[in-house]
């Protein structure tokens, strides 16, 4: 077996996609969400593909499509971020009962810190609640190995399997071993079996029993993998999982025992035997104290972790934090780092909307026309704006929170939601608002893409993952939902945008304005650079209106604003400037 494998420098999400192909994947679905999006993007970019792949409208329909494929006997994966699993929770929880035919992997990527999410929920809890196995990779290579194993595990026990990488794993790039991809592809066939696929109460009772019976065999299967291991070498031990186990492994000194857990359900007998050999056990994991609770359940030894306040309950871990935890608990780390403090008082550099982004003039116009009113918003790039964003909770929530507020408040409610987010879960909220006689303005920010996650197509764009397709009309959908007014405007025409908002303000009921202009990044790729604008210093009165607008292309130089190289020539600032100091440059 001494053969040397070819290695490539791959992003973990690319490696997971590669692992799926090496396992003979037939069917892939997903909804974009950082840090998971590159898995489907990579599968799509693969040449000569003999499998089906789609960007679905949301995670629930993505999972149900994958279930359809699995019940036809095909190997399928459904990819989402952790909060996407909330949307897919309905099929997810019951799927454990019916089980699967072809291997089905649910990839739910968690986001400790959180880098690009609204919460820090732990998908391991979901796997536990559904009684399905969960694989928790600690390196990109292990993530690839795990996804291959996951398809086999899923088929052996006819159960869906969760793969749960975290941001630091998904977006790690490493040298990855490459194996061959099988050429042949399977054809699906649905075999009728009402006792399994028709989940009425009588069948559910029996299937729940079977699901419970599977657990022991699954634990046995998992215990044979290299994803769990332990080393005994002292009275103190560290138990760890995921990326935290890589940090712990790097710092653990020779005389301390180590147990790495990479699969769930945890083998409690092994855990008990390990804990009983040690007086003191340090549990180091990210997000919820899942390992720690299991250790406390089976052990009478001293357990140190999140529940004793030694390991932080939120955020992500790193070597410096783990270093501190070890030292505090009398374990001398193998490596010592120099104490260095970050420089304080530096100007922050948060992410911001791009120069020329269509969200900014739309939101700015809303703030001007509906001064002092209420602006429920949603998940997307627009949350980066400093204007007209009062709420952001979860996908599609703007429309329904907005209609809820409109039933309670006298002020106008102006809701904003992106085109992809509206298609995802905004539509039921609109139907509900019309049905229950809400009074609000809904502005759909239609930038013709799913920008934040890397420009994936959505049903209103006329493109799906494979190319051009039927284009669903936002206007027709909103009219069919019963909106009292549906108007489409280009927010680059700032005056017209404001007029449309004024018209909407004067009307009653549920009024929809579709603000449509392509994402500035996409437009630049298609059309190239536009001639930028400049500020005539002699005419500038230093009023600050252009700076308040918040375009990254306008910056303060000494005491006057200037327009920098980021300018994409949208020209909104020239409309806002009351002294006429901003004009398009004469030449490039």
């Amino acid at each position, binding site marked *: 077996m001494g053969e040397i494998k070819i*290695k*490539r*420098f791959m*992003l973990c999400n690319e490696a997971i996609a590669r692992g799926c192909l090496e396992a003979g994947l037939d069917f892939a679905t997903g909804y974009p969400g*950082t*840090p998971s999006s*590159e898995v489907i993007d990579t599968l799509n970019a693969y040449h000569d593909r003999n499998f089906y792949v789609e960007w679905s409208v949301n995670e629930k329909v993505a999972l149900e499509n994958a279930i359809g494929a699995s019940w036809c006997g095909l190997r399928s994966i459904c990819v989402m971020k952790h909060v996407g699993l909330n949307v897919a929770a309905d099929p997810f929880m019951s799927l454990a009962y019916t089980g699967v035919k072809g291997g089905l992997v649910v990839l739910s990527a968690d986001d400790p810190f959180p*880098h*690009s999410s609204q919460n820090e929920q732990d998908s391991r809890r979901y796997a536990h609640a559904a009684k399905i196995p969960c694989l928790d990779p600690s*390196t*990109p290579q292990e993530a690839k190995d795990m996804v291959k194993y996951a398809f086999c595990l899923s088929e052996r026990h006819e159960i869906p399997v969760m793969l749960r990488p975290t941001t*630091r*794993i998904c*977006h*790690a*790039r*490493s*040298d990855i071993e490459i194996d061959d991809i099988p050429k042949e592809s399977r054809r699906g066939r649905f075999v009728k079996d009402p006792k399994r696929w028709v989940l009425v109460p009588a069948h559910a009772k029996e299937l729940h029993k079977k699901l419970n019976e599977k657990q022991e065999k699954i634990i046995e299967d998992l215990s044979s993998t290299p994803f769990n291991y332990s080393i005994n070498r002292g009275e103190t031990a560290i138990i760890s999982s995921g*990326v935290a186990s*890589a*940090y712990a*492994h*790097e710092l653990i000194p020779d005389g301390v025992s180590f147990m790495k857990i990479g699969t769930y359900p945890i083998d409690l007998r092994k855990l008990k035997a390990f804990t009983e050999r040690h007086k003191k056990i340090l549990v180091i994991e990210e997000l919820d104290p899942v390992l720690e609770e299991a250790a406390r359940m089976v052990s009478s030894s001293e357990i140190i972790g999140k529940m004793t306040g030694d390991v932080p309950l939120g955020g992500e871990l*790193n*070597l*410096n934090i783990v*270093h501190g935890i070890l030292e505090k608990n009398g374990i001398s780390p193998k*490596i010592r*780092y*120099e*104490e*260095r*403090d*970050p*420089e304080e*008082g*530096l*100007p*922050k*550099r*948060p*992410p*911001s*909307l*791009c120069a020329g982004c269509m969200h900014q003039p739309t939101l700015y116009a809303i703030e001007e026309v509906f001064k002092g009113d209420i602006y429920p918003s949603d998940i997307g*790039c627009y949350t*980066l704006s*400093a204007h007209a964003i009062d709420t952001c909770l979860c996908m599609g929530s703007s429309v329904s929170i907005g209609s809820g507020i409109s039933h309670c408040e006298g002020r106008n409610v102006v809701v904003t939601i992106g085109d992809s987010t509206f298609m995802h879960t905004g539509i039921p909220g609109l139907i509900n608002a019309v049905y229950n006689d809400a009074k609000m303005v809904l502005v759909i920010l239609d930038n013709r893409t799913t920008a*934040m*996650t890397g420009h994936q197509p959505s049903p209103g764009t006329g493109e799906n993952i494979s190319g051009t397709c039927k284009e669903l009309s936002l206007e027709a959908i909103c009219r069919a939902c019963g909106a009292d007014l549906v108007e489409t405007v280009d927010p680059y025409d700032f005056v017209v945008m404001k007029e449309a908002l004024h018209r909407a303000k004067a009307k009653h009921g549920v009024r929809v304005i579709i603000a449509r202009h392509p994402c500035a990044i996409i437009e630049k790729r298609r059309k190239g650079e536009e001639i930028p604008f400049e500020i005539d210093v002699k005419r500038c009165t230093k009023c600050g209106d252009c*700076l308040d607008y*918040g375009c*990254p292309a306008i*910056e*303060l130089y000494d005491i006057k604003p200037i327009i920098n190289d980021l300018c994409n020539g949208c020209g909104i600032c020239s409309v806002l400037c009351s002294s006429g100091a901003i004009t398009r440059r004469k030449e490039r």
Partner: protein
Amino acid sequence: MSFDLVIVGVGGQGTILSARIIGEACIIEGRHVISAETHGMAQRGGSVENHVRIDGELGPLVPIGGADMLISLEPLEAIRYGHYLKKDGILISNTVPIVPPTVYRAGILYPDTDSLLLSKFNHAKICNANILATEAGNVLAANIVLIGLASPHLPFEEENLIEGIRRSVPPKTMEINMKAYELGKIHNEETC
């Protein structure tokens, strides 16, 4: 022992590409490598950090006080992430500022980065990478200028580093990128 590198800058400047070049050089030399990238929300003009760890079975994040080298595409970001460096670690930095909009909104001044780069780092090599990249043919190659400036201190055979560049950049830009690399390499003005 691992060689730990942190590459920082402003979203869109090409930090991910720089990290990729290092990673490809590792693959060529058959060495283990793991890097951490900033994707998604944080990319939009925000401060971005990429960690690269060469040799050893390691987690993806470089510890504070543990980096052998910090490459910064923007001087304020060099100061923001300076604490990642070991005391004897080296800073490689561009001197051209990108002033964040918060300077206007929060009323904080953009610091005097030229003098801070000199006073805060024991061992630093800095240059105006934008001018050198423009001279090479495209200002976007500033990240490659810095790879050139860093090259004598990177743990690679030079031909492998250059092959790493070739594998990572679009083929039609290779000539400009090679010129940028050479201009960075010969700009060997040690500032401290």
